[in-house]
């Protein structure tokens, strides 16, 4: 593994981080808070998202500790309910939804399409402020008693029966939702209108395609969540509304409207992860992505089908049999594009020249875990098995395999992959490979037992459980400890590398994307002159010729 590497670093004795870059351009806190530079906003996002990830992670730790014993020994049932609700809300709306798009996407999309910035830089900054506002409100909600609706706000529980901060929690999500809409809108406009000369749709990196699909979902889905939560808030305040059967409303209507957003939201969370994987797998196998068109269109297909499957969350809730049939069938169809992607990535390795740097290890983790996560999704999409498995730990394990095993792995892959570009310095390779392996092992230990627990019938959101489930829960908690270490390590060595990492140079991975053809960290306007795209994406031969030319001109 160590014998072969693609890392091509400049001579460290003479190498310097370019004096002029987006970080050094201006100094002072205000220059960051009022910036319109997409790279600086991405940095702000990265810091705030990491903050919320660790809050959500701490809450997850509390959940696992409580579940160590069958009784409610660590905290009372209502505290536990608040803890898992806040864990869900923070992780979904303040980590997963904005994770890759608002940080990595924000950072690289303009460079990938060869633009100086996103189309609407001020809107981009506004979206960060909305995120922070929502986040602060969430912290306020948490510190003034929390909320115990679960992240799903199920009516009439949320509108009538709970006396925690439901309205303020709904408001947080509303505000964070607008932040996500603005990010998505900005990406769509940028991808349509800001591409550099020669950058046709089919020369775009697959990262951009996936982000485009995710952005469509953000823009079209999120407003429905906004109006739904508005109606929940109104119903709670005025004691009349359309969701509570006590007033003549229908709780299933809430389920319809909520999942109309929240199912596509799952794809908002995973498509950006897939975006990262395409880049990483191609770069480290030195090969163009196998079946570019298929991967590109499978992203779009996921985005389109994502809107037609929401009622599969309601199979046991008394939707009509006809709906159950149709939604189950459509769910099966949406699983196909994901399968296509997995195989296309695997075959990208075929006849490649593979080196195993950290991003690729994370990407391998993604491919394995996402395969399990995706396949178990089919268990739940098939109406018959859904009856037994839904609302149990099987569901919990399934979406953690997709979200943590998929999205978080991809996020870490992406962070490591673009870290040299972002900071101009390399992360330490050995320890990060170790962290990737630890994360993978810890993850499987944590969440695989939960599939078994779910099959046994252990319901989700239980503070106490029958004693025969304890052994598996202890396994899971033990795994979570390992997983926690796996997540703490990157924070430590990445911070370390900010000062002590090796100077990366423009293109340490020898990658083909336009973002690698400029200095690291990039200039505020990204390129000294607007590039002209004259080759396909992932054209490694073009890159070689380019380098030969440079060598020739220098020599």
């Amino acid at each position, binding site marked *: 593994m160590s014998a072969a590497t693609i890392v091509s670093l400049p001579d460290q004795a003479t190498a310097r981080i370019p004096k002029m870059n987006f970080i050094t351009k201006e100094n002072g806190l205000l220059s960051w808070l009022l910036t319109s530079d997409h790279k600086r906003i991405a940095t702000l996002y990265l810091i705030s998202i990491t903050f919320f990830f660790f809050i959500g992670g701490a809450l997850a730790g509390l959940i696992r500790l409580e579940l160590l014993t069958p009784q409610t020994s660590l905290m009372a049932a209502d505290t536990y309910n608040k803890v898992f609700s806040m864990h869900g809300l923070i992780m979904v709306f303040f980590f997963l939804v904005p994770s890759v798009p608002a940080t990595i996407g924000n950072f690289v999309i303009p460079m990938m399409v060869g633009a100086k910035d996103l189309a609407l830089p001020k809107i981009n900054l506004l979206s960060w402020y909305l995120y922070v506002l929502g986040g602060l409100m969430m912290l306020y909600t948490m510190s003034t008693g929390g909320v115990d609706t679960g992240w*799903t706000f199920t009516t009439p529980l949320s509108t009538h029966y709970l006396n925690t901060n439901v309205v303020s929690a709904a408001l947080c999500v509303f505000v964070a939702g607008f932040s996500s809409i603005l990010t998505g809108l900005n990406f769509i406009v940028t991808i349509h209108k800001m591409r550099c000369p020669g950058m046709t749709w089919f020369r775009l990196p697959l990262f951009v395609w996936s982000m485009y699909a995710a952005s469509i979902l953000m823009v079209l889905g999120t407003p429905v969540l906004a109006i739904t939560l508005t109606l929940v808030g109104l119903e709670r305040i005025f004691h009349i509304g359309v969701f509570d059967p006590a007033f003549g409303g229908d709780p299933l209507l809430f389920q319809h409207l909520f999942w109309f957003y929240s199912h596509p939201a799952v794809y908002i969370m995973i498509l950006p992860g897939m975006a990262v994987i395409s880049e990483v797998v191609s770069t480290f196998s030195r090969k163009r992505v196998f079946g570019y068109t298929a991967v590109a269109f499978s992203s779009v297909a996921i985005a389109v089908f994502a809107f037609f499957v929401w009622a599969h969350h309601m199979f*046991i809730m008394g939707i009509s049999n006809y709906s159950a049939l149709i939604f189950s069938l459509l769910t099966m*169809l949406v699983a196909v594009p994901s399968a296509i992607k997995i195989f296309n990535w695997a075959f990208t390795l075929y006849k490649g020249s593979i080196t195993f740097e950290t991003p690729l290890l994370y990407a391998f983790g993604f491919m394995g875990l996402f395969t399990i996560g995706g396949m178990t999704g089919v268990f739940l999409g098939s109406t*018959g098995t859904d009856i037994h498995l839904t609302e149990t730990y099987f569901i919990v394990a399934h979406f953690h395999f997709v979200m943590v095993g998929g999205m978080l792995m991809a996020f870490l892959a992406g962070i490591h992959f673009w870290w040299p570009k972002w900071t101009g310095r390399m992360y330490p390779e050995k320890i990060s490979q170790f962290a990737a392996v630890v994360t993978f092992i810890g993850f499987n230990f944590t969440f695989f037992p939960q599939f078994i627990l779910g099959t046994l019938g252990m319901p989700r959101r239980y503070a106490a459980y029958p004693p025969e489930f304890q052994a598996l829960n202890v396994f899971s908690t033990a795994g979570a400890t390992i997983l926690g270490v796996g997540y703490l390590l990157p924070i430590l060595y990445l911070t370390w590398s900010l000062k002590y990492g090796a100077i990366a140079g423009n293109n340490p991975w020898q990658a083909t994307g336009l973002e690698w053809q400029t200095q690291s960290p990039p200039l505020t306007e990204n390129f000294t002159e607007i590039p002209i795209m004259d080759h396909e994406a992932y054209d490694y031969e073009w890159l070689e010729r380019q380098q030969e030319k440079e060598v020739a001109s220098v020599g």
Partner: protein
Amino acid sequence: MDHISPVLWQFLQKWLARFPLFPPEASKIAPQSDALYFFMVLVSLVGLTLVVLLIVSFSIFYSKARHPKAVQIEGSTLLEATWTIIPLGLFLVMFVWGALLYFRIYTPPANAMNIYVVGKQWMWKAEHPGGQHEINSLHVPTGQPVQLTIISQDVFHSFSIPAFRVKREAIPGRYTTVWFEATTPGTYHLFCTQYCGTNHSQMIGDVVVMTPDDFKKWLASSTSGDSLAQNGERLFASLSCSACHNTRPDARGPSLAGVYDSKLTLSTGQAVTADEAYLRQAILNPSQHITQGYAPIMPTYQGQVSEEGVIALVEYIKNLDSDYRVQQTLNTTEIPPESGGKAPPAGHVPAAQKGVNP
């Protein structure tokens, strides 16, 4: 952290030796559900193995050390078509299989014995037709299809029996049904799986499966005296339902004898089947469920009858195959001795008389 070590100790001593990895199969549907489950596990394993095998073997054969120069490949329509069509085919098989299973679980057979289940924060109440009343437990016989008619009186709950592989949401304001036929006597878990507030995890109980003989004994020993229908009859009388719902020529409401499971035409022209859900709605929201030819004069009983009361009324109406006894109550004369002959429900005659004439 001193509490960790006793946990570890317990863990090693007690549970590592034996803990379940798969739930018992205690209903007729369970093996069918598991068959599909294992089929899916198999497909997943094959798929996963394939992906892992591809990744590992490519990683070995095409690592930079062995394969220093990558060969650029555009893609392969044939291969891509393969891994589009094969998963699609498998998923469609799972869809059809799953749908068949789904309809089996949610379509009760005609001979099913009906038990009503009411969920509330945070307990399950079961009402047997014989008037037996249970909290957080459910006694059922083997070899007899049992239909559960489930409703919640506050928030969403979900009635789950993992050993039977069945589960159904308890929805406020609406009946849902599920059925099973237990096969193995024993005690199994009963969970509420839909998050329902503070003590969600306390909303658990036991499903006790008994042999038919034991079940009969249990029924006899736990009866409270009146059957559900008799409670309903008493409620029917005390709410003066019979003032309108009788067979007199000038009756203001339709006669309810034999109304259950019949086809009705409503005043809006809509055709409906008078099932449990309809009967419940007609009691609580009468104005929207007026039978054609009658005036919308029935008052709503929303807030006046508990869910259990509605269940008793529904059960009474279900078993009402003649108006004879309604007439009896109306006439308020002495009860003729032969009244038992057609009294609903058959088989509970002596108690029925007590119910009407307390």
